[in-house]
């Protein structure tokens, strides 16, 4: 998935780094200092629908059927996350205990068209 450049109108991954200092949370989140909050945005024209994800040959077959019968799907395909990874956090709870945990699916790694 391309990361978003200003001139990229198509579905891409928009990278943002959030420093916990910016949130004023550095007092209770000990590690890491921040994390990547990426999200997906951009256009998904019909010929990109379902990619990546389903087999290209299957997709081209569906797409040619659509064209041959002059059918166009009424809904639009959306740019959504297709791969994520967990984030390991070390933080203080309200009792002053140190907790180390892995939060699943916190960082978007890749985007695609639904």
């Amino acid at each position, binding site marked *: 998935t391309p990361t978003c450049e200003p001139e990229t*109108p*198509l*579905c891409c991954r928009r990278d*943002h780094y*959030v420093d916990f200092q*910016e*949130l004023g*949370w550095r*007092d*209770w*989140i*000990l590690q890491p200092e921040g*994390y990547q*909050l990426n*999200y*997906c*945005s*951009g*256009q*998904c024209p019909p010929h990109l629908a379902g990619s990546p994800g389903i087999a290209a040959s299957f997709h081209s077959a569906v797409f040619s059927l659509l064209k041959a019968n002059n059918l166009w799907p009424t809904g*639009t395909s*959306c*740019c*959504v996350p297709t791969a994520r990874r967990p*984030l*390991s*956090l*070390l*933080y*203080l*709870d*309200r*009792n*002053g*205990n*140190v*907790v*180390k*945990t*892995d*939060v*699943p699916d*916190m960082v978007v790694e890749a985007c695609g068209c639904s």
Partner: protein
Amino acid sequence: PAAASQCPSCGGLTLPPQVERALVLELAKQQILEGLHLPGRPHIPRPPPRAALSRALRRLQPRSAEPARGEELISFAEVADSAPAACSSVLTFRPPPAPARLLRARLWLHVAPTRPGALRLRLFRWGARRRPPGSRALLAEHPVRGPGWQALALPPSGLRAEAPGVLKLRVDCDAPDGNGTARPPPPAPRLLDTAGERRPFLELKLRPREPGAGRARRR
């Protein structure tokens, strides 16, 4: 609101950079709190001293290199000596109430270097509600081979918190005389180092949360 007519991920939407940044920061707060199952950011009236914190994390660091499934937790003790010259202390912990998820528990204590001869630590559950007040349930025994940090493995079943979030343990010591009977240790200064970075702490390993554990189970 400006995007009401179109969802932002379906293309075509561009936000001014300041608005996008404010949105991202707000989203980050929601995402982290939701990921940690917290209603809001915790306020910590009694943060642990930095020295104790870094010492405890350094002590655990080698083990936490493997990918951790579940949670690991360090809970620092509030220490009350029953008698400064005696060989016993009562430790009070405030772990979060997660009795069913406890997999492993270890108590770390720093023994002062002033005790001559062999010494044995005995750890008791203290004041558990189901027992008469002040009664003692033996949890662990540990021979002390020298001053410094000692790690006592505890049975998770013996650590269920009684009152919401409060756990009391009592540490006693005696000097076994070779044939298994114990005699009171010679009087000496305090058994445990409890100041600063030598504060006792519990190291707990918790099973991963069940997906949807926060919600009521449908019967």
